[in-house]
């Protein structure tokens, strides 16, 4: 691994669940970015577990922002640092999927539009986990959450019991802004994630990294499975690793032969209710997605 990680732990003693994927994403990114870092976390798991006064778990300057304000506070810190002549500081935000794709989307869009030199990391655990597993717009098709139960009434029909919408593609959304740098990553591929965080820190404009970070509590897997299930999502093609820079797309790993979607899904309690037809539908969605990804990366 080329990137040198700092020995120091900058996210320590937090109250996240055992096996928390988001914690891995935050912890490793801070080890790449180091001491001169200003961190913004909106309301969500990482702020809830890291800032319970008097136990304060960030070793660098960090603050909780209002839920919708990650992008705006990052910009404020960046612009403030610039105005005060603070040199060589990294300004990084860690927001969950709801904080990014739902309530924080507008402020993120504003920050990218300004081109402020900030790093926005979305740790995606595919639902509002901090409040006890409710659907966000990044909850995948078919997933059971407390607001998309696996019954027939609310979101009924033959297919799609559970969440009936297809996961929003934040990578597409941010690249449509002509952002300086965007990437998808996963804690199922740590070297790739670390490389991308380092690359983001060297950019002159706005960077966005979307890191898949499973939540054993919300997904219904063992706490020891977090990294393995993230890796399996990549292997079966339901998550992808890509980059966007200077208007060019790169597919970091073009999976030639996917592993079984069914096996990946059936390991998780949130997908237990899916029928074979549901799983076929998810496989089709995957194939469609990859067709478009490959086209873009050509």
């Amino acid at each position: 691994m080329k990137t040198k990680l700092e020995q120091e732990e900058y996210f320590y003693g937090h109250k996240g669940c055992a096996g928390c994927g988001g914690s891995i994403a935050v912890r490793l990114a801070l080890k790449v970015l180091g001491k001169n870092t200003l961190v913004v976390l909106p309301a969500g798991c990482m702020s809830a577990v890291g800032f319970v006064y008097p136990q304060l778990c960030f070793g660098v300057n960090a603050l909780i922002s209002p839920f919708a304000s990650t992008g705006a506070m990052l910009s404020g810190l960046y612009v403030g640092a610039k105005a005060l002549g603070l040199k060589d500081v990294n300004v990084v935000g860690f927001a969950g999927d709801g904080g990014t794709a739902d309530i924080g989307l507008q402020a993120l869009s504003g920050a990218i539009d300004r081109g402020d030199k900030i790093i926005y990391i979305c740790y995606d655990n595919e639902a509002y986990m901090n409040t006890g597993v409710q659907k966000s717009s990044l909850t995948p098709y078919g997933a059971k959450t407390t607001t998309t139960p696996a019954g027939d009434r609310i979101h009924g029909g033959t297919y799609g019991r559970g969440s009936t919408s297809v996961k929003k593609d934040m990578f597409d959304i941010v690249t449509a802004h002509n952002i300086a740098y965007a990437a998808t990553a996963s804690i199922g591929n740590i070297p790739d994630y670390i490389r991308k965080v380092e690359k983001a820190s060297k950019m002159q404009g706005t960077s966005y990294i979307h890191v898949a970070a499973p939540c054993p509590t919300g997904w219904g897997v063992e706490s020891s499975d977090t990294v393995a299930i993230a890796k399996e999502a990549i292997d079966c093609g339901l998550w992808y690793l890509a980059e966007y820079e200077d208007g060019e797309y790169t597919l970091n790993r073009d999976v030639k032969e996917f592993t079984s979607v069914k096996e990946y899904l059936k390991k998780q309690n949130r997908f237990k209710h899916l029928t074979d037809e549901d799983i076929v539908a998810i496989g089709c969605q995957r194939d469609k997605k990859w067709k478009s990804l490959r086209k873009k990366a050509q």
Partner: protein
Amino acid sequence: MEPTKKFVSGDEAVAIGVKLAKPHVIAAYPITPQTIVVERLAEMVESGELESEYMYVESEHSALAAVMGASVLGARTFTATSSQGLLYMAEVLHYASGGRVPLVMMNANRSVALPWSIFGDQRDSLSLLDSGWIQVYVEDAQESLDMMLQAYAIAEHPDVLTPVMVNLDGFILTHTYECIEIPTSEQVETFLPKFEFANKMDINEPKNLFFSSSPEHNIGFKYQQHKAIENAKSVIEEIDKKYEAVTTRGYGGLVDAYKCDDADYIIITLGSITGLVRDVVEELRSEGQKVGVLKVRYMRPFPDEEIRAYTKAAKVIGVLEKDISFGYQGTVFTNVSAALRECDVQLINYVAGLGGKNIAREEIVHIYKELNDTENKSKVSAVKSQAVRFVGVEVPKDED
């Protein structure tokens, strides 16, 4: 150098005041009738007469969040808003005061939808009286400029560390041109200290900010916030005196009383309407009537002692305000009533000017007459004793 004079609107006076305070960061989002403030500031930054980082943001919510981000690094900041924009910021208002971030913001008082209206009343800021901000209401363009400078001094005072909202009546003040005196930069330097923020983020002494706290400690933080705004009472007077010493202009602190000492009938006002009421007082005084006007300058901290002190002689008081808390009474009236709860005085609430409706001179004269009639007819008024009277609204007979 001598102070210069300029013919400007209220919005422009605010922009000039902000420029003199030299903020490091300005966040701008347009909304009528505030927009001219951020436009003028953009021109000043563009021309080089003001060295600030000027950010355009995508909403008011983000404007306030962005300046908070800059402020915790030790930057002096500015943003401005109005009406719907202020309400959209509501969450962040509480955030800033709870975080003890000494922001300064201008609000152009404007009616709140529905029905839509771009014109002035004070329902926007008064509905956010509990957000933990210091709220000051100014009367004219000169006071607008002067209060921007005072606002920074108050907010950043170590005993206060509380954000300040400077309120200007939409259009009536924001868009009306007046001749103002602009302090010299030397005067401003003498008056306004550099912003030193003890709590700021520091690379060598890193901090974790805006944390959550258990119910056990949470109330302690809230007590501190309350105490800080209480502290602001003396700080406000102190800073006003200092400002007067430097510029010769002082505003008297929390209230501004005009001929109240011996007045039987007093109208309590907020904001720009005071000028007209003062004219009426002049006129009625020349006819021998003992009337006065008491302008409330700060709604938070609330000048309860000052109101009691200046209304000692009063028999009947009218509270005239551009606000109504539906189902009860105007917010200023509720606050004044609480301050005077143990005083032997009658109070009438006049709700006027909502949605920008003009308040006519004759209506003020009529209010003084009603105050007089109420007293003369002893405690049982011939004028039917409604708790709240809507000025200029013809109430159908069967509802009266």
